[in-house]
């Protein structure tokens, strides 16, 4: 178990990166604390897998360093790092039995037979495959194979970290929940540093203590699920986290007010002068629909998801999602929306702007 430090880390697949766009991973400094469960969240192609492979040593970064505790392992091979990694698609050794598959990483490290046996039994129980241990891995279904892959990732106790690269993609939804819960409790039990790559926000938010959100090779925010929801650091985080995501409106910010098309909107705090494109963001959960006051909204569709209603609307020509309580009557005529001032976030050029604390207090 170890703390993993990424120092000025960047990676480009090409030999001579000319500008930022050539980097699959933009320069980053980040510390993965020991014994934490992280989720690495982002859309496909944002560099999650690249980052994971750099940590596990399958890929050498073109710039910067990787440290385990205080040891520089940037160019150390995978075998020297003592890391477990589970891949997106199941990798099993077809000709081996399930038991041998699980024992393989331990045997390669010369563990003694009694220990291997007890460890394999424990892991088999964990992934629910005790009764197929003697079978060949070849004929098993895709999700059974992926469970074996997971098991091989978990079988070693002394690993520095366990990396999961979208490991539950091929597993059916019910099993997904069960396995994710298992992983989570396993983390509680053994306290391995775990990094879990996914593009599914639910998976990320339920698994991790801390979520690292990536976009186009850059880490845009690191925080608890709550922080990502309450105070997204970037418009992308606001949009990506939440169902539906945050709504954005271009606005001019003046002190404690946002002005949209001549309409004043009260903000929860005081902001200094901002430059660039300024926007306010508000989550659908904190919007009130009413017939009297606020910004005019044209309702285009209402989706009843049972617990509440999702109202799809247009505000100043922008698509806007609001969440209305289940009992609320929504008529098709023009309505108005008001925002909870304390829940409005302000962004300048897509990045979150923190309010001016002194003036707000004054």
């Amino acid at each position: 178990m170890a703390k993993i430090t990424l120092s000025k880390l960047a990676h480009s697949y090409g030999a001579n990166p000319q500008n930022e766009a050539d980097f699959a991973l933009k320069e980053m400094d980040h510390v993965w604390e020991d014994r934490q469960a992280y989720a690495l969240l982002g859309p496909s192609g944002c560099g999650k897998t690249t980052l994971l492979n750099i940590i596990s040593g399958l890929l050498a970064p073109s710039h910067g360093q990787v440290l385990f505790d205080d040891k520089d392992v940037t160019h150390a091979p995978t075998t020297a790092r003592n890391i477990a990694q589970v891949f997106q698609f199941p990798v099993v050794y077809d000709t081996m039995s399930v038991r041998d598959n699980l024992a393989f990483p331990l045997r390669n490290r010369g563990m003694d037979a009694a220990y291997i046996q007890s460890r394999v039994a424990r892991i088999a129980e964990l992934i629910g495959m005790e009764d197929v241990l003697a079978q060949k891995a070849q004929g098993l279904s895709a999700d059974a194979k992926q469970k074996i892959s997971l098991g091989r990732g978990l079988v070693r106790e002394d690993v520095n970290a366990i990396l999961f690269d979208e490991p539950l993609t091929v597993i059916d939804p019910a099993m997904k929940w069960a396995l994710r819960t298992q992983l989570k409790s396993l983390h509680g039990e053994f306290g391995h540093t775990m990094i879990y790559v996914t593009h599914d926000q639910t998976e990320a938010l339920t698994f991790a203590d801390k979520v690292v959100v990536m976009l186009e090779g850059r880490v845009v925010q690191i925080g608890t699920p709550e922080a990502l929801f309450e105070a997204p650091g970037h418009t992308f985080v606001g949009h990506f986290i939440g169902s539906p995501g945050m709504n954005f409106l271009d606005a001019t910010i003046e002190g404690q007010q946002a002005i949209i098309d001549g309409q004043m909107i009260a903000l929860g705090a005081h902001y200094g002068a901002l430059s660039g494109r300024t926007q306010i963001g508000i989550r659908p959960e904190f919007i009130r629909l009413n017939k009297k006051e606020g910004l005019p909204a044209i309702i285009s569709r209402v989706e009843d998801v049972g617990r509440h209603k999702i109202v799809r609307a247009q505000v100043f020509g922008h698509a806007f999602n609001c969440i209305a309580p289940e009992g609320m009557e929504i008529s098709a005529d023009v309505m108005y929306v008001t925002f909870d001032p304390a829940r409005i976030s302000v962004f300048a050029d897509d990045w979150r702007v923190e309010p001016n604390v002194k003036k707000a207090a004054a």
Partner: protein
Amino acid sequence: MQKTVNQKAWFLVLPVFLLVAFSAVIPLMTVVNYSVQDTFGNNQFFWVGLEWFSELLHSERLHAALGRQIVFSSIILAIEVPLGVFIALNMPQKGLWASVCLVLMALPLLIPWNVVGTIWQIFGRVDIGLLGHTLAALGIDYNYTQDPLDAWVTVIVMDVWHWTSLVALLAYAGLQSIPQAYYQAAKIDQASRWSVFWFIELPKMQGVLMIAILIRFMDSFMIYTEPFVVTGGGPGNATTFLSIDLVKMALGQFDLGPAAAFSLMYFLTVMLVSWVFYTVMTNLDKKAGL
């Protein structure tokens, strides 16, 4: 649903039927016809039943040729399959050199059989051949026209030169289809190079290797042109394989009856061995799949 009866459909099958009849069925039946008769020229034929078959089954000449054939096929399989796999493992995965290697590997496969024979026939000659002359200059007593062992070595090296590429290319295709994740997982699991070969690469190549072995077996078991051009089956009968023996019997001695019986048994043997081989291999596959 009512089936439509339309006898005209037979006309659509007719071209294929005729083609197969003239290209395979009729010639084969001619051979069957010869195999049960004796002829004394003048197109006089006498019915002899299965006499030729029983005679050939006890013929020492045939037994010897069959023995040589089995030894030859075994040796070239034992060399070409491991060597082909070894070459495939060491070929570059991608880039310019991968293409260069592929083209170089494919070259021997494009050369006609009798040209291959001629190349080696000249290459091995002691008076003018590069190989033969060099060996002689080095003081090695090499002469494929007189020494049976030298003749065997020449014929085997020639076959390895000609056909290892095929095994290598098939194995290479098999290797290329292995997803990178397998190699990455093996690294994570700290698998040795040997384990990677034994547990990942070999199982994934199983299908193509089976095809390679099957093709190389059939081809080598029926080999004719190359050894015929190089050694003519000699010295003595040292490199007289089944096909060469068959041609000697049919065209050299004009023993049409025995040659026809020989052909049929030869044909059935190749088919039988290939079938057994294929069945065993696919069954292994199925068992593993349980």
